[in-house]
């Protein structure tokens, strides 16, 4: 077993290219999965790599460094389009988890119930990936391939999440449904982002649902149906069961599949209603 905690990205990538490493950052998925078993893998700790933590705003949008924690996101001033992400950040595990867990870790762990994924899908996020071969970007929707499965190569590291400028418009809201108040794995969750044109109609909509399919997904039919409608209290009524047909929820200890489908429709409507609510208190609820 080897452990490495490099200071620079080049070092990290060189190591990654030279062996099979388990990557650790916040540790909040690593240790629970490990349990009491002895650690035998080589482990690459990327928390000391310079330049991987923090949120930058540029001409082409936002860059959220891979090791940015959920608490960092909560404490950063961001446009209203990011409200869903900031609300989700407060629902990732507990405060203790939010202080250590990272945004890239949430994506690379690839849990169907990852709270960070729907808001990032609704922001049209791209994953910035580096290796000794160079760097590339991949839409988040193509990056997570299935339960615990991503498109990350064995020599690659996620270096950032990028939100394009165009996706940073509008307002957003996050709805989480669980069987208790705190520290709960979602039965279902929804992020909705709605951009409104000058005449008060929906210009663009992005709606993503988690915990109701192996990978969280956008509801593109619904998004299309919302465009052009008045962005007011009536908007949520546009949600129809057929808009959720692409979901494939399962029965598990948290809820039945049938319930998930029904509840998802309801919280989609609520997320939309909150995203277009005029009252900021209602939006934050």
């Amino acid at each position, binding site marked *: 077993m080897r452990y490495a905690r490099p200071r620079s990205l080049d070092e990290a990538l060189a190591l990654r290219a030279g062996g099979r490493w388990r990557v650790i950052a916040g540790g909040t998925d690593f240790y*629970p999965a490990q349990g009491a078993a002895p650690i035998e893998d080589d482990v690459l700790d990327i928390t*000391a790599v310079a330049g991987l933590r923090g949120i930058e705003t540029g001409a082409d949008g936002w860059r959220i460094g891979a090791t940015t924690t959920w608490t960092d996101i909560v404490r950063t001033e961001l446009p209203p389009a990011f409200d869903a992400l900031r609300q989700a950040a407060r629902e990732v595990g507990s*405060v203790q988890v939010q202080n250590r867990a990272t945004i890239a870790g949430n994506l690379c762990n690839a849990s169907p119930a990852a709270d960070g994924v729907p808001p990032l899908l609704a922001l049209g996020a791209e994953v910035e990936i580096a290796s000794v071969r160079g760097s590339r970007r991949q839409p988040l929707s193509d990056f997570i391939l299935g339960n615990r499965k991503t498109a990350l190569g064995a020599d690659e590291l996620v270096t950032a999440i990028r939100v394009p400028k165009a996706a940073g418009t509008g307002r957003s809201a996050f709805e989480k449904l669980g069987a208790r108040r705190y*520290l709960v794995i979602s039965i279902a969750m929804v992020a909705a982002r709605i951009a409104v044109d000058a005449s008060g109609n929906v210009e663009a909509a992005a709606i993503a649902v988690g915990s109701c399919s192996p990978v969280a997904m956008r509801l593109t039919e619904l998004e299309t149906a919302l465009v052009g409608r008045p962005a007011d209290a009536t908007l949520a009524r546009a949600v129809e069961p057929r808009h959720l047909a692409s979901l494939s929820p399962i029965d598990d200890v948290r809820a039945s599949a049938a319930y998930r489908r029904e509840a998802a429709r*309801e919280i989609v409507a609520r997320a939309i209603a909150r995203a277009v609510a005029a009252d900021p208190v209602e939006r934050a609820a």
Partner: protein
Amino acid sequence: MNIRSATPIAFSVNGAPVAVNAPPLARLSNVLRDRLGLSGTKVGCDAGDCGACTVLIDSEPACACMVPAAQVEGAEVRTVEGLADGAVMSALQASFLRHGAAQCGICTPGMLMAATALLERDPHPDEAAVADALGGVLCRCTGYRKIVEAVVSAIPSPLRGGSVSEADRGGDAENAAPPTPDLRTDPPHRGEVKGPVGASPLRLDGPPKVLGTERFGADERPAGCLSVLVIRSPHWHADFSFGDLDGFVRDHPGIVAVFTAADIPGKNAFGVIPPFADQPALAQGRARFRGEAVAIVAGEREAVEALKPAEFPIVWTPLPHALTCAEGRALDQLHGNRPGNILTRGRVVRGDADAALAASEVTASGAIETAYVEHAYIEPEAGHAFMDGDTLVIKACTQSPMMDRDDTALVLGLPRDKVRIVPTATGGGFGSKLDLSVQPLIGLVALKTGRPAALIYTRQESMASTTKRHPASMRATIGADAEGRVTGMVFEGDFNTGAYASWGPTVANRVPVHASGPYFTPNYRALTAAVHTNGPISGAFRGFGVPQAAVMQETLYDELAAKLVMDRLAFRLKNALRNGQPTVSGNVMESGVGMVECLTALENRWQNALAEAAAHNMGDGHVRRGVGIASCWYGCGNTGIPNPSTIRIGVTPDGRLVMHQGAVDIGQGSNTVIPQIAAEALGVPLSAFSFVYGDTHLTPDAGKTSGSRQTYISGKAAEKAGRALRETLLRFANVGDDAQIVFDGAAVTIRDGAASRRIELATLAVGEDGYVFRAEESYDPPTRPLDADGQGKPYAVYGYGAQIVELEVDMRLGTVKLLKITAAHDIGRAINPLLAVGQVEGGIAQGIGMALMEEYVPGRTENLHEYLIPTIGDVPQIETILVEVPDPEGPFGAKGLGEHVLIPTAPSILNAIRHATGALVTRLPATPDRVLAAIAEARR
């Protein structure tokens, strides 16, 4: 590059620099505990689910169990040990102590650290901010309300003030910060309190809990101690044979030995009820449930931690298995003498129930299913064993040291006096720590190797291998006449008792005695069966099956009230058991039945809550309000069989008043309440006592902490011992009964009016026990065994109560939001009102879990993120009304309370959901999907 750096990891802990040679990925929690000796940081799950290990890293809370040691290089780490300034507690610690926010104390360090971070950012947080900050720390004892109060009032404010009387400062509590009692937490006032009884002194064992110095099962490890790994069955039911065990030991340097059933020197069958003892310490050739221990590996710590259980040489042959009662009845017999896999049956019959129901004006029938419920104490089972000469000493968490001693001696083939059980602090028990867990395993290793041996269960191991609340399948019919008087009831219940007996017989017997609820039911038939399956062993869990049965009966009472068009509280009040009326077991109490008083105490809130709900429901929103009510009764102590307690008090030649108090305090407060009773009886302040706590070599048997018996039974023994010592002293001084006893250094002064007699203790003869005066008294409740129809006097004392739940149901999501719970409990006499309220709030939290979220699915929810217990955000405001209808038998009138408090909660929640929605959920827990399905069904 830092690949496997050999450089020590340097950081600061509580302001002092440290450098630790730890593996870079060692969990910070283990580094703090094992390498730096800071055992105040507790480990409850090793997965970030419980928050007990919360520490501050550069002022931000983190679960130390998920932080690699290498990541704190250069950081500033703070732990609970750093909160106090020397012996002076922080304001927050003092506030926790003052508010009764620490019960067992295992979550307290995590709570304190999370709250410290909050208060540093926001010195005056509101309740919502406290909940957000503490939402990641689970507590299973307190119900969180006292924790919230402690945090919001942690900063001394000029608005609060006043002083605390001398009686409020129990023995060791002098370390507390200047007391600033919060008026909102002052105990309900019930007339003048003169002596220790009725006051709410700071809990005597409280300071170590808030200072982080309390020693729990995992907090001590002697030098040279071996570690023990348990090999467990991955199958529900399977035969097994071992491969080359000697070779396994040989091939693993540092492994000292493997032990199997073949190595057990005594009788390899233990059980809390000796006639039913059937559980092997290590299974012999066949495992009957997933998680059953089949072998143990002992070795040096590093070697054991490096083991992979999959490499252990064992071959499994799975067998057909049963997980439900129906499957259990059909499966081949699991135990030789139990046909149909029926462990035992319970039966209580009185009058002619069928005829009464046939003649009733109205009847209501139903069926209810409940789930396995996990105790989920935050401290997994842990302890260590060592040989002291030829005596085996076991220090472990427990609820029942004497039973541990007897069963461990039996399994290990030792005389009882060669086994000594020294209980550590116990981080919650709720019934499961009555059964043996680590004791015979570490005992075997210590006995065989001569070396100390330690075993700390992982969370998964604790959940998979220890007992649960019985899943119940119940059916019942209750009838009433046109005036609304209950005429009769029939009840049948199957209780899934799992693979071994444990407390299954107790559940099967307690349920029929209690299934009528605290109501006069002249005609009655209740039949129960405890059915073996290959599921987890069901044992004791706060209420022994009565909480399940109460759900059945109380939901039917609502239906009867509806059919009779009666107010639900009025219907209950009409039928409430009264003095002089026989119970369904023919037990007649001539006084002390406080059921009417409890219901009456709730009437105002009931009417207001109904009016508020009706007003809210006038709107057409999708959130509907409901109000529910349910009652409880519960007999204290064993059912119709002896269960004595003995308490000893002695006076040393140098003037110490020593109480030998063997009742284990698992957080409920017996370490404070029993001394309060003794102090009152002896006529001295509580602070006069010093204590010898549970140690089977030093304390007489005060029985098990179970059956809500310690305040009543051990308390009664303490009262008798206190009175006996008082009489001895007064007689020695030859003074009258009203004389005052004052312990005064090495003398006792007895004042009788103007006269005063000073007894110089050093001049008196010292007994073998080291005392110059002593009293030892026992008390056993005057009960009578039940006959074949369950008639007799099962208990000498009962407690009573009722609760109102107000809640909202989201009609589109099926989610339930609790708004308020009002609880009225008749506890006879509140010996310690603050601790009593703490019991009520904690029991309600467990009732909330049982009603709304807790379902243990064997093999699937063996952790605290799949198995959900209430968080700080799930327990609403609780108003507790302590009703005091004195019991003629209990000490100073007191009755038991610990289990009663959880019984009404789940049925009142179900009744409130039905009130809100028209739908009754018949399978617990009422998760959102089940609530929504029930609403859809009711609309059909």
